[in-house]
């Protein structure tokens, strides 16, 4: 969309001009909330190697949102209802060991495709929804209301508070579940709690980035941060910072161009990921240090 002739390249004037539109202010507020929440959840997701589960949760949100629109309520409720329910279902399924991964992934893949097919059916039943389907799939930051922003804020605050409580044992259980079990850490309960929190984060992010691009905010900042540092505290801070930077940049650039925000957010995040990989490989000292000192799998290392 093009509302302005172009940026004046004076950041203060540009920001003032951009934020004179209430929908841009809402978009920035919502983007900030979602970027921080998705980044932090994503860091744990990459650590726990549950990228596939996170992706499934984001796709399950699509029929939820389409169904909500079909029965005439806000898509937000559809996202939350389906993502949280999906998280509970995934948690209830047996967590397969190395031998069972083959079947587990076949089930997950089938569920994903079926969820999208159901969403498509609901959209097809709701005639004249052509632009709606694109904004459900690829995000739409224009239509965010102040009420939606406060809903996002409340859910994000609750999720982050819950994560702060379970963060330490969760990191322990993620890095070495066997030792954690032996130390009486409730590994199974933590896993369920984490999936529910991940569901909430996915539902939040879906409303900004759309069903198909949630993954960008969940996995990209986290993977970038894990490539750069192995220390949990620093990596979490870095993840949130990268998430914020790409979201703000994406929103600002999308404001001045006709192309959608999802394209810019994913492109900036991917550029960051590639740059982090390049830094890692040109400075082998980092890699040596991180594999020696880190007790966790470093994500992208081979």
């Amino acid at each position, binding site marked *: 969309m093009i509302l302005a002739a172009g940026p004046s390249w004076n950041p203060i004037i540009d920001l003032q001009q951009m934020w004179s539109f209430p929908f841009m202010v809402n978009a920035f507020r919502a983007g900030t909330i979602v970027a921080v929440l998705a980044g932090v959840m994503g860091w744990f997701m990459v650590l726990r190697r549950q990228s596939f589960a996170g992706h499934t949760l984001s796709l399950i949100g699509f029929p939820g949102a389409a169904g909500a629109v079909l029965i005439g309520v806000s898509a937000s409720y559809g996202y939350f209802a389906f993502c949280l329910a999906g998280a509970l279902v995934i948690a209830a399924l047996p967590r397969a060991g190395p*031998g069972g991964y083959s079947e587990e992934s076949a089930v997950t893949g089938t569920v994903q495709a079926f969820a999208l097919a159901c969403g*498509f059916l609901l959209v*097809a039943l709701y005639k004249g929804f052509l632009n709606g389907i694109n904004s459900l799939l690829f995000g739409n930051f224009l239509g965010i209301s102040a009420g939606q922003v406060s809903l996002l804020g409340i859910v994000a605050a609750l999720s982050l508070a819950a994560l702060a409580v379970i963060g330490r044992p969760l990191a322990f259980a993620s890095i070495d579940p066997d030792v954690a079990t032996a130390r009486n850490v409730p590994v199974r309960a933590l896993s369920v709690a984490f999936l529910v929190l991940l569901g909430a984060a996915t539902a939040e992010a879906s409303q900004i980035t759309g069903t198909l691009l949630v993954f*960008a905010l969940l996995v990209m900042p986290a993977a970038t941060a894990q490539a750069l540092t192995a220390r949990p505290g620093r990596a979490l801070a870095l993840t949130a910072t990268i998430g914020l930077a790409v979201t703000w940049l994406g929103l600002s650039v999308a404001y001045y161009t006709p*192309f959608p925000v999802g394209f810019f957010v*994913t*492109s900036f995040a991917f550029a960051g990921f590639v740059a982090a990989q390049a830094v890692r490989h040109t400075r082998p000292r980092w890699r040596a240090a991180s594999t020696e000192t880190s007790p966790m799998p470093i994500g992208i290392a081979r």
Partner: protein
Amino acid sequence: MIWPSFLVNALLAGTAIAAAAGLVGYFMVLRTQVFTGDALSHVAFTGALAALALGIDERFGLFAATIGVGVALGALGGRGRADDVVIGNVFAWVLGLGVFFLTMYTTNNSAGDGNAGVNVLFGSIFGLNRSEAVTAVVVAALIAAGMVTIARPLLFASIDNAVAAARGIPVRMLGYVFLVLVGAAAAEASQAVGALLLLGLLAAPAGTAQRLTTRPYSALLISAGLAVGEMWAGLALSYTVPALPPSFAILAVATGGYALVLLSGGSRRRSRWPVPPSQLLPAGSRPAGHGVRTTAARSTHGPGS
């Protein structure tokens, strides 16, 4: 009864595409490369829209993108298998690019087909014309022939990569050839059920077949047969109930079949135990998902090792 030509075309293309998808999907599930298939489904979307935006044949974009990215993923991940986090990053960005091309296409062709994006994402098998259907059949036949040719060494390499390599089987080469076939099958399947849903056509019949038998060649045939049967049932369902889009009907039948097999298998195993095995062990020490793991392990490792 004279069948309308769109239904004949759909049946023709659908049968061939489903057979190829069933064959490739079986190995994809066996080699735990479902996530690769997932990534390729997103790539197919971007490839098709890029071709549309640049004004070339949509199918050219589909095949170029899925095969190219399939091979690139193999190279990135090493040993012909790609890392989950790398795949996730790549396909998130690829989708972003797809949105870019979608916007470019719809803004440049305001009078053109506003449905293009939806058709690429969710398929339009009832919209295929005769020459498109024939092309789909020819390509599917090539994929199936390739799959049958490499089935034996690929099975060996998938079950025990190290031993296969020691026996002089070119496992790395096989991995790449397989990824090319997965890419081609993904491009084919996305013409039938759309880029977003092709994963179901690849994974559901294969998962069902793995549940039904532990013998690999029977499973391979069952997977292809199921895929074709589910395709026919889905097309028939969608033809008789016009409110259901064909891609939804196909996926619903495939998912239903898989769910049925999973549920019946689960109840049979449970009834063997007078007391659920989970209660025989102290709560903390029991391995989660015990039953599922043993079955899957048997089906993956049983016959070859």
